[in-house]
């Protein structure tokens, strides 16, 4: 178990204050927060890469606060991979084994094994600059995993990938976690990523942990406006995806909406408020059908307004002030909402 107690770290003008976390062995733990919240500093402090002003870090009861990073037995993977450009993929992966003075005859089979697991065995002789983003990320993971670390630290591992590679890598991370039984701390600013991968999530803001809980806790029971803003700025639903004649249908609490996805079974779906179209009359289109709803709340934000409607479930829509006036929207009236299949993000 990894225990962080009252950790304080100062880096340049930034400080991490009184951070406490308990992470179970084998857990997939997410640190979620906006840019500048201190996520990377926290991760690097756990790795021993920053000197600690106050507090402790311990692993399985052993205090490692002042232990050198090379003695901690952990691996780190950065968003932009940070492969050693002067070394081949093979040498990158073997780097940790050589540092550990692993016997020469063991290095080959261990590199080979992890290369097969990460599906990079055909790239071993290449140099990092010639690889694609997804390939680099897999090499970076292989390099961290080859030494069989107890703890794997991931700093925004999916952010630099294109959507297709990201979805694939997301599955691979879940698979690695399941097969290797390694504790993972994964830093991200993406709530959906946190939701689909994390067993528990810590929300970090301005160098402090503001909430820790399961993804459901964070989503349904945010303890502050900050967390709510992070979690509820979108229409998030848990549902069930099934194939249909033209694409897929996702059942979210009673209503079925069209979506473009290949995922099946239990899924999450999110729709950005600005992608929901409100009208007084039903709209017939091939992209998606209109749903009848009742307006339950309006929050005026000046040039735009958030309109809450109940189908059920409840959706939040973003409309311009002009539409608000022209459509004469008021609480209690009946409207229709239309959602394009391409606007539904299933994950």
């Amino acid at each position, binding site marked *: 178990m990894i225990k962080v107690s009252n950790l304080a770290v100062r880096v340049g003008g930034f400080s991490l204050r009184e951070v406490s976390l308990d992470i179970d062995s084998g857990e997939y733990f997410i640190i979620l927060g906006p840019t500048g919240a201190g996520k990377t500093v926290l991760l690097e402090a756990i790795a021993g*890469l920053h000197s600690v002003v106050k507090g402790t870090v311990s692993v399985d009861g052993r205090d490692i606060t002042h232990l050198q*990073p090379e003695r901690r037995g952990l*691996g780190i993977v*950065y968003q932009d991979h*940070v492969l050693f450009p*002067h070394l081949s993929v093979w040498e990158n992966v073997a*780097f*940790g084994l050589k540092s550990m003075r692993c016997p020469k005859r063991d290095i080959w089979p261990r590199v080979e094994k992890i290369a097969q697991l990460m599906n990079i065995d055909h790239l071993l002789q290449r140099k990092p600059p010639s690889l694609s983003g997804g390939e680099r990320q897999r090499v970076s993971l292989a390099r961290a995993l080859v*030494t069989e670390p107890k703890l794997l630290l991931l700093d925004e591992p999916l952010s630099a990938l294109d959507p297709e590679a990201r979805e694939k890598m997301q599955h691979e991370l879940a698979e690695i976690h399941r097969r290797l039984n390694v504790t993972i701390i994964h830093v991200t600013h993406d709530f959906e990523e946190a939701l689909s991968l994390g067993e528990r999530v810590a929300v970090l803001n301005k160098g402090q942990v503001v909430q820790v809980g399961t993804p459901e806790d964070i989503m349904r029971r945010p303890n502050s406006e900050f967390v709510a803003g992070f979690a509820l700025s979108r229409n998030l639903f848990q549902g069930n995806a099934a194939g249909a004649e033209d694409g897929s249908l996702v059942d979210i609490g009673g209503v079925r909406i069209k979506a473009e996805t290949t995922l099946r079974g239990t899924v999450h779906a999110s729709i950005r408020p600005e992608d929901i179209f409100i009208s007084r009359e039903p709209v017939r289109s091939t992209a998606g059908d209109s749903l009848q709803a009742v307006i339950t709340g309006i929050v005026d934000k000046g040039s735009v307004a958030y309109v809450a409607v109940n189908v059920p479930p409840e959706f939040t829509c973003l409309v311009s002030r002009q539409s608000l006036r022209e459509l004469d929207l008021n609480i209690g009236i009946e409207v229709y909402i239309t959602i394009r299949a391409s606007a539904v993000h299933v994950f």
Partner: protein
Amino acid sequence: MSRVRSWMRHDSMSVVFAILALLLLAFILAPVVKTVFSSSPGTLWGTLRDESVYSSVLLTVLAGLLATLIGIVVGVPLAYLLARRQFRGKRFLEALIDVPIVIPHSAAGIALLFVFGRQFLLGKLFGHVGITFVDTLAGVVIAMMFVSVPFLIDSSKDAFKAVDVRMEKVARTLGASPWQTFFRVSLPLAWRGIFSGSVMMWARAMSEFGAVLILAYYVPFLGDRATVAPILVADRFTAFGLDHALPVASLVILISLVIFVALRYIALRGDKQ
């Protein structure tokens, strides 16, 4: 043709800049090229076989090389610290390192004499282990080193700064000690900048005149007395005139150019990979 014309019509600034650049290039190239080609290959060969010229060239190349090697051993660690660590007085230290570039080199020679002379502190200290600096090879080396090491430090510092600090962090988490991280990651990634800084330092060291003149004018070398090539050129000019100085000057320029171009080629060849 039409592309060139439209380019000229639309962009007078580029034309003016190009003309100024050409003038400057001519200013640099003309004296160098004229001097090199003013002596026939036969004359140059004859000059090199002149005992005093030969030993002077050898002394210059060798002392420059020694100064550069010592500079690498003590300068690269300093460059690394300046690139990676934050500490009080760092800016002052960085300015201090460039002082040898901005002071007159004859004054630098006086300053060195004042510290490394036999009756002064460091001179006495080294005297105990049998090293003296006034009018010796060691004196030539430290005079050259003093005026040229800033080029090596500045270039190496920039090279280390260009290495993503997270490369080193990853290496540490992979079990590498600070020493291993330096030799397996930082140094290989910065070597090109360090190498080109070393070439600059060597070239600058070999062309040093003022500081060497004060500290170690003629030194015992190869069983005789020799002086560095820049001083030899000046001595021949003042004692015998242009005709005697010119072949030596041609030879020295030619040797410097060959070394410089060859080393630049080595440094840039790796760039294409």
